[in-house]
């Protein structure tokens, strides 16, 4: 019989390698997904216990503003109102995004449109270095530099949302910048050429053509940055003051979901209400992270449709 014909009707070594490779990679991804599911399950089971085992009203949890799980109120109910932390988390997240976005977009335009050479040689490494600085160090600097500055300029203790915003601004700047750079780079060259050929100045080209075309990408970057800010714990915890109070202004101590979670988790007993309530905060963080991701996807889809 024809040996080639014979070989073709049997499984070749390549086919076996392929099957094995496919399996290996599938196993890797499955493992990761399993880990994520395990964490999800783990956080959800503890976080939901607050509502099912300890019978806390979900609405109270989201809307009340006293966070004293260990202390009962006048009716004998534990006080687990997470509103101050929710407001604090959203506050620092949005404010830092608002401050960071102009800087990030400016830096990205500088790197792609104004001076790609300087951008590549100086700004790019600078941005990457900012990513690498550990959050402990950011917190340390925030505590020893930013907080005193705020205290001297605005009065008060210096701790609060403003300090958190400054620290987070530096921390999310690299994320937003590098994603904006990618978005700007993906705008086809002929858009720019067309605008310049029509007599537009460089800035007109950038503001009317390039930025507009890159908008979905930039938005994705901003949301990514916000997701990062929302989940950041150590650095924010060191400068925000950790007071479970509804923030009155930007310079009085406030708290975020992560800061309360991080500082309280070691002091509570597994399975107790105090502990479960903290896991509810973690669950909230997870859901928010999911929401941010869905938002990014949605923006991406919108961008594609255009």
């Amino acid at each position: 019989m024809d040996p080639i014909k014979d070989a073709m009707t049997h499984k070749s070594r390549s086919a076996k390698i392929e099957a094995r490779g496919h399996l290996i990679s599938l196993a890797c991804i499955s493992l990761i997904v399993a880990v994520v599911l395990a964490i999800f399950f783990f956080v959800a089971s503890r976080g939901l216990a607050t509502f099912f085992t300890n019978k806390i009203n979900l609405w109270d949890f989201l809307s009340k503003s006293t966070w004293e799980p260990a202390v009962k109120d006048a009716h004998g109910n534990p006080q687990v109102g997470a509103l101050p932390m929710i407001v604090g988390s959203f506050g620092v997240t949005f404010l830092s995004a608002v401050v960071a976005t102009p800087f990030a977009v400016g830096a990205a335009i500088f790197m792609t449109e104004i001076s790609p050479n300087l951008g590549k040689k100086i700004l790019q490494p600078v941005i990457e270095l900012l990513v690498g600085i550990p959050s402990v160090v950011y917190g340390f600097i925030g505590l020893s530099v930013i907080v005193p500055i705020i205290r001297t300029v605005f009065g008060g203790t210096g701790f609060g949302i403003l300090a958190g915003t400054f620290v987070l601004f530096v921390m999310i700047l690299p994320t937003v910048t590098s994603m904006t750079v990618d978005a700007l780079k993906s705008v086809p060259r002929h858009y720019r050429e067309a605008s310049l050929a029509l007599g537009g100045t460089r800035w007109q080209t950038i503001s009317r053509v390039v930025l507009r075309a890159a908008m979905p990408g930039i938005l994705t970057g901003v949301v990514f940055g916000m997701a990062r800010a929302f989940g950041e714990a150590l650095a924010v915890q060191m400068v925000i003051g950790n007071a479970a109070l509804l923030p009155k202004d930007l310079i009085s101590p406030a708290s975020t979901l992560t800061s309360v979670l991080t500082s309280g988790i070691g002091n509570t007993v597994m399975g107790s209400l105090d502990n479960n309530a903290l896991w509810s905060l973690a669950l909230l963080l997870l859901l928010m992270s999911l929401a941010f991701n869905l938002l990014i996807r949605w923006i991406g889809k919108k961008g594609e449709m255009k």
Partner: protein
Amino acid sequence: MQNYSLDDRYIKDLDPAKHEFAITTNDVKVFYGDNEAVHGVSLPFERYKITALIGASGSGKSTFLRSLNRMNDNIEGSRVTGEIMYRGLDINSNNIDVYEMRKHIGMVFQRPNPFAKSIYDNITFAPKRFGEKRKEVLDEMVETSLKQAALWDQVKDNLNQSGLALSGGQQQRLCIARAIAMKPDVLLMDEPASALDPISTSTIEDTMMQLKDKYTIIIVTHNMQQAARISDYTAFFYSGQAIEFDETRKIFTRPKIKATDDYVSGHFG
């Protein structure tokens, strides 16, 4: 441009007694999702001959070519039906080992795609993976295939140079050498010269003429002069269908179908 009927077709019948076929296809259809890109093509490909597939862009000729060694398998959402007979087996069926089959039906692509490896490794990479470890055999293989691809004289002193450092035409010949190092039966070429300058093109054409002693070549080309110069048979594709198949000479002098006539005489395309 006018519309031509897809039913108006002429496929020359080659007598199996007089011609030996490398591949024959029967009612091959290619779908991308719900879209049928190739509508039931049946063609014979004679052994040790060059068959050219010509036609306008989007006529389905490249898609059809890619289904001959099942490269479309890797495109998500694509599906090929019909028979592709090779050595008496329908290679479009599930029980064929597609990797083994591709060793015998090789392919050269439109854009040169050498690996980011040295010239030597570009050629020996696949044979080594298939178990050939003997240095002298590999050396010999490199020399022979580079000679066949008319590249040996230019690179023999620099075999450790990266394949990507070669010029476009040289890269494409390296890809041809890489394909023939596998000693395939059939070589599928998807517009191998379209990205190249005229001088490189003519070198590659010369290479093909020499290769046809040992290989069956099926080439997709946009360039009608090229088809006329090098091929023995020509199939004209129009709108996902093979409209006319005949000896090249006849296609270019006395086409039987109006669409072919209009295309080869430059009225559309």
